[in-house]
């Protein structure tokens, strides 16, 4: 961590990172479990998407430090992340495929 890079909130400590990894592991286990629970039926897809999104956000926010650093990094990344579902949602829609 360089002295010159300004921080906007204090970074997590190692034990926080271990805790986050544990949480990620738990969510992954939940995802896999949900796949095998047939009674959930059509609710499986949205649940999985939410869990994947949570893992995604946790890694991006904490491991990649986006929560703790200059807003410009967040904004640059968000453009890409937001563009994908919009653009490809439209493409897949024209093929008659509704996602999620």
């Amino acid at each position: 961590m360089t002295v010159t890079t300004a921080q906007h909130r204090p970074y997590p400590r190692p034990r926080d990172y271990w805790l986050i990894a544990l949480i990620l592991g738990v969510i992954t286990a939940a995802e896999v479990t949900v796949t095998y629970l047939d009674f959930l039926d059509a609710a499986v897809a949205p649940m999985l998407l939410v869990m994947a999104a949570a893992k995604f956000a946790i890694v991006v926010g904490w491991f990649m430090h986006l929560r703790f650093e200059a807003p410009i990094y967040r904004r640059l990344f968000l453009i890409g992340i937001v563009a994908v579902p919009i653009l490809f949602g439209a493409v897949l829609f024209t093929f008659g495929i509704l996602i999620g």
Partner: protein
Amino acid sequence: MTGNRGLWHWLTTTDHKKIGKLYGVTALAFFVVGGVEALLIRLQLATPNGEILSADAYNQMFTMHATTMVFLVVMPAAAALTNYFLPILIGARDVAFPRLNALSYWIFLFGGLFLTLSFFVGGAPDGGWFGYAPLSTQVPEVVRMDYWALGLLVLGLASVLSSVNFITTVLTLRAPGMTLMRMPVFAWMATVVSFLLLFSLPIITIGLLQVYLDRNLGTAFFSAAGGGDPILWQHLFWLFGHPEVYVLVLPAMGIVSEVLPTFSRKPLFGRPFVIFSGIAIGFMGFGVWAHHMFTAGLGPVAEAAFALTTMFIAVPTGVKIFNWLGTIWGGSLRLKTPMLFSLGFIFLFVIGGLSGVTHSIAPADSQQHDTYYVVAHFHYVLFGGAVFGLFSGVYYWWPKVTGKLLNERIGKLHFWLMFIGMNLTFAPMHILGLNGMPRRTYRYAEGLGLDLWNLVATVGSFTIAASVAVFFWNAYRTAKRGEVAGNDPWDGRTLEWSISSPPPEHNFDVVPVVHSEDDFWHRKYTEDASGNAIPLAASAQADPGHPETIHLPSPSYYPVLSAAGIFVMVVGLVYLPWGLSVVGGGAVVTLWGLFGWSMEPLTREDHG
């Protein structure tokens, strides 16, 4: 110590101004190549049942004319001006990553050479610049479309790397006091273009990869027989292809936004609106792509949606036009050559924009699609628009780059010949198209009513060629005995006119502190009660700025080496499986280049 001349100096330069010159010269060379391809097309079509080109040769001509003009002329010409002037306009000494900048150029050059190579080894790409599948994915034994797919992949890489560089430069290296809103409009448009490329090129990268795999590995991405869908290619191509046309025209719009105020002696009217319109065009440019697919069977919902978004995108463009007119209105106009080209841009781009709006009406487009009406539309916006805008920039900035002014009389001759030639060539195509002349067919029969206007168009194309010859004559003559320009020949408004012509290698002796938009203008002039410009005394113009020791990035041969490795790799990829060893060799060279680069400090003489 390396000298200032010689091949090695140019091969290893990391100076954004030299790299800009490299792009410029290369773009001009390819302009001639693409122009010759166009002239051959026009010769073939001058008369019915023409016999100048065979059908096969014709296919190569129209494919390469478009590919050359889009990827090897207009984009690099904009890159030339952006490379040279973006750092200076924002008060910086260079871009964020000078060696990466050099890499982009060399990858581009090798990409262009790679595409050109195809002519000499069995034929150039012949499936259209848009490479529609399955035409582009069949006949893998003929490698032309492999050259196309791999060539575009290489060129795309160069552009993405440039985009990362320019965006980072704009976000981090602006001079003190230069807020984003005080940045010149050309710098803003270059930034929007970089974002457009950043997000559109990855999409076509995957598409091109899929084309290559369909051709060489037998995958089924676009093969209906294999269960794939050719329409997917169209989506992927146009998701890139439409933002690409704004990539082509926004730099020209940026130039016009600099030239008009300078030659009207008035600030840009509605400057924030011009900037926000550029951003809006960037965003909305991603929302209209399927208007290229109105005849592909998307269905009424999709077609209606894209018709609407296409109509809407005319709005920010219109905002710009009105602001440009507002700039000229009441201004003290000097009709020098740069100004003529910018005024020509407005006139011609509006015509092209209007035909574009007619395309947005999906049912009308069904008749226009694949006819010469479309050819008319895009040449008005790309030639009348982008090319005229770029020439405006060339005449405007030539004195800054070379220290000499291009001759005015010859410049005006160039302008009028090009203007007349352009209209002679492309105006009749509206008529030809609505009368049913289809695109991409190498000849037409007699008695269809197409003869006269095709002949007129051919005459027009040779007029354009003559105008280009006039330009080269002007450039040559200026090099021999041109008028010395001085720092500020146009009484300019932006920072580049505050330094010498040509600029010193470090750009600014002292990094300027910026207090407003058009900062340089405000250092020269203040305004009286009625808004007239009053020159300030010289002492009032001096600004202490920020003195500091100047470290310039050292030259490096790793960029050109890495790019050469990439060239070798793609040649190998065309000729699989025996080419695999060539790919390996190329990869070694590239990795050596990248590794050496990572070990090399940016500035050789490093004092703390």
